[in-house]
């Protein structure tokens, strides 16, 4: 029996994957061809979705992008046995996009059936947990520290150090919280993991629980991600049934319980303390730090709060050892980063590479330039609070420290490309507008500053009180940068000032005038 793979990933669904799957099932039945349809995660080549793959003796053969109308001709061409067709792309693993990636965290995404525990185990799943169960908690934490893994949510804080603080805290209850409130525009790697390999996140959280002595975990997922929530719930149910979660994991004395909690559309809840407030059933107001969540987090107890990618990277570190992971990367940025190419880009999708690849390689070698065919004028890296980078900075390698030097951030690895039709003054205005909509309201620089920022940008765009308004934007940005309680108000100046500094002409200034 032939197996046909059609992704269940949200992006593939948004381009009609379900309709393609239905058409293939119907056509196979009509032709009396026995097939098995597997709904995998996405390979991350979204310009080719819906991407249909068939298993052949040489590997998986890819066809895409497939429309329901083309299904009949695929059968005529004998695609079930890898037959040639205009949509045939060749062997998936040999495609340039896939071939040169270093997929560690994403090793299984697009390959396995995401909600099959059996498939997960058959592809090296739960090896890390088995190792961890046999280790002392201190040794697990040491492995994570030695791997060099830093928080992939954006703050890049060493994960092992965070775990160590929680391990050393004494309390009758500790928690593991997964921040899956992936609200940054241009990012979707958390979603792809949750939909494409939910068990790897569950395994990572279980290992974290064992390492620090926490028995309860929560995954806080955006309400905008219904498919992620569904996949996680299915996977968690199987994990409980098979003894990978619950009381006495795999016959040990260790317990770990896990639950999915749904967010409700507040961007600020991606900030860790606001997220904890939300989990407790309160408004998502940012907390003062200290105390750190590692000391006093959820319900006032020591809490590890990590991003999806950080936790989903833990199993491979525990499976293959810290040195294996640490050997990838550059400088103090160790391992790999799942990079997301988005916006005005010809080939958008997911590229997992070791740190050190340049923006230019990503935008042109992987991305193929802009979707519109016009020159790429700017890219925003790291979500709505990330800086805009001009073409002159495209040779920067992806590395936390290299980006800091440019007064930019890598954040969660999302890259949004804009062509030369973009007006950067409008993007600066939007940054303030977004901050005003999403501010939790606790601190004045963010709550009031964002609205004043929109007003001043309106004046700049209209050309009234121009020089005075530009000076005011800089002054306001300084207040927000230094006086806000969290990154929402504190980093809104990144997109604003980077737009102003790199593209002064869009703000009605001459380059020379700006430099003065």
């Amino acid at each position, binding site marked *: 029996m032939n197996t046909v793979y059609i992704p269940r990933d*949200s*992006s593939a*669904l*948004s*381009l009609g994957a379900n309709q393609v799957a239905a058409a293939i099932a119907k056509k196979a039945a009509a032709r009396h061809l026995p097939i098995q349809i597997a709904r995998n995660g996405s390979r991350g080549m*979204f*310009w080719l*979705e819906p991407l249909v793959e068939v298993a052949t003796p040489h590997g998986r053969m890819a066809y895409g992008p497939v429309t329901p109308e083309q299904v009949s001709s695929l059968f005529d061409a004998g695609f079930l046995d890898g037959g040639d067709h205009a949509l045939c792309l060749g062997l998936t693993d040999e495609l340039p996009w896939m071939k040169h990636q270093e997929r560690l965290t994403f090793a299984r995404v697009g390959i396995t059936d995401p909600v099959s525990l059996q498939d997960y185990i058959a592809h090296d799943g739960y090896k890390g947990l088995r190792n961890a169960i046999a280790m002392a908690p201190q040794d697990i934490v040491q492995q994570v520290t030695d791997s060099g893994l830093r928080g992939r949510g954006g703050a890049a804080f060493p994960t092992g150090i965070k775990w160590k603080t929680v391990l050393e805290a004494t309390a009758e209850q500790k928690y593991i919280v997964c921040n899956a409130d*992936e*609200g*940054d*525009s*241009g*990012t*979707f790697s*958390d*979603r792809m993991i949750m939909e494409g390999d939910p068990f790897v996140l569950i395994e990572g959280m279980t290992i974290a629980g064992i390492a620090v002595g926490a028995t309860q975990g929560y995954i806080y997922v*955006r*309400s*905008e*991600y*219904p498919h992620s929530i569904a996949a996680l719930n299915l996977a968690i149910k199987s994990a409980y049934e098979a003894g990978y979660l619950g009381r006495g994991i795999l016959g040990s004395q260790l317990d770990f319980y896990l639950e999915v*909690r*749904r*967010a*409700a*559309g*507040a*961007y600020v809840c991606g900030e860790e303390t606001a997220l904890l407030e*939300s*989990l*407790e*059933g*309160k*408004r*998502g107001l940012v907390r003062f730090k200290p105390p750190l969540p590692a000391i006093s987090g959820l*319900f006032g107890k020591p809490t590890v709060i990590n991003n999806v990618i950080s936790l989903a990277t833990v199993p491979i570190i525990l499976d293959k050892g810290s040195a294996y992971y640490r050997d990838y990367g550059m400088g103090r940025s160790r391992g790999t980063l799942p990079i*997301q*190419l*988005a*916006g*005005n*880009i010809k080939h*958008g*999708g997911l590229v997992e590479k070791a740190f050190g690849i340049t923006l230019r390689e990503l935008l042109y070698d992987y991305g193929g330039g802009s*979707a519109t065919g016009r020159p790429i004028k700017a890219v*925003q890296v790291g979500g*709505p609070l990330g800086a805009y980078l001009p073409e002159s900075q495209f040779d920067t390698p992806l590395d936390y420290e290299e980006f800091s030097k440019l007064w930019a951030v890598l954040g969660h690895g*999302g890259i*949004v*490309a*804009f*062509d030369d039709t*973009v007006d950067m003054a409008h*993007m600066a205005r*939007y940054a303030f507008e*977004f901050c005003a*909509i*999403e501010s*939790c309201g606790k601190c004045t620089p963010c709550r009031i500053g964002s609205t004043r920022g929109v007003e001043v940008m309106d004046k700049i765009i209209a050309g009234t009180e121009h020089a005075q308004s530009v000076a005011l934007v800089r002054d306001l940005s300084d207040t927000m940068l230094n006086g806000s309680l969290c990154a929402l108000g504190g980093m809104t100046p990144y997109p604003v000032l980077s737009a102003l500094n790199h593209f002064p002409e869009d703000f009605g200034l001459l380059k020379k005038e700006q430099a003065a």
Partner: protein
Amino acid sequence: MHDQQARIKSHIESHRHMAGALMPLLHAIQDDLGYIPEECYNLVAKALNLSIAEVHGVVTFYHHFRTKPPGRHVLQVCRAESCQAMGCTALETHVKSALGIDYHETTSDGTITLEPVYCLGNCACSPAIMLDDQVYGRVSPQQVEHLLASAREVS
């Protein structure tokens, strides 16, 4: 009305013992009724030992929760940067004028409620929209009109 109250009470019963019960409870109520009626604040507050002000504060803090019934379909248009890079501003203008409403409003025939959304995680396929529970990527204004027309037919 009586039925609605009974349903709310049953959601309260099945959620009240959870740790941090308020958010899951509010989701359950909105999933069932389409919105969170203000009349239920009192019941929810009492069951969770909160003040009515605290419940009101939470309901109104989160963009996802609504206190009025929506139209039969909810259309969310993504306004975030990636979608802007692919022309969502023109799409928004088109949708608003085609429906004759602004964001947070419902068409006079009660079929469509229009909401902005800040990222659907479909950024490699911008511009994106969500109609009820289904995300659509790389949409054109014509495609959105077509989707809305079919939604109106089945409603």
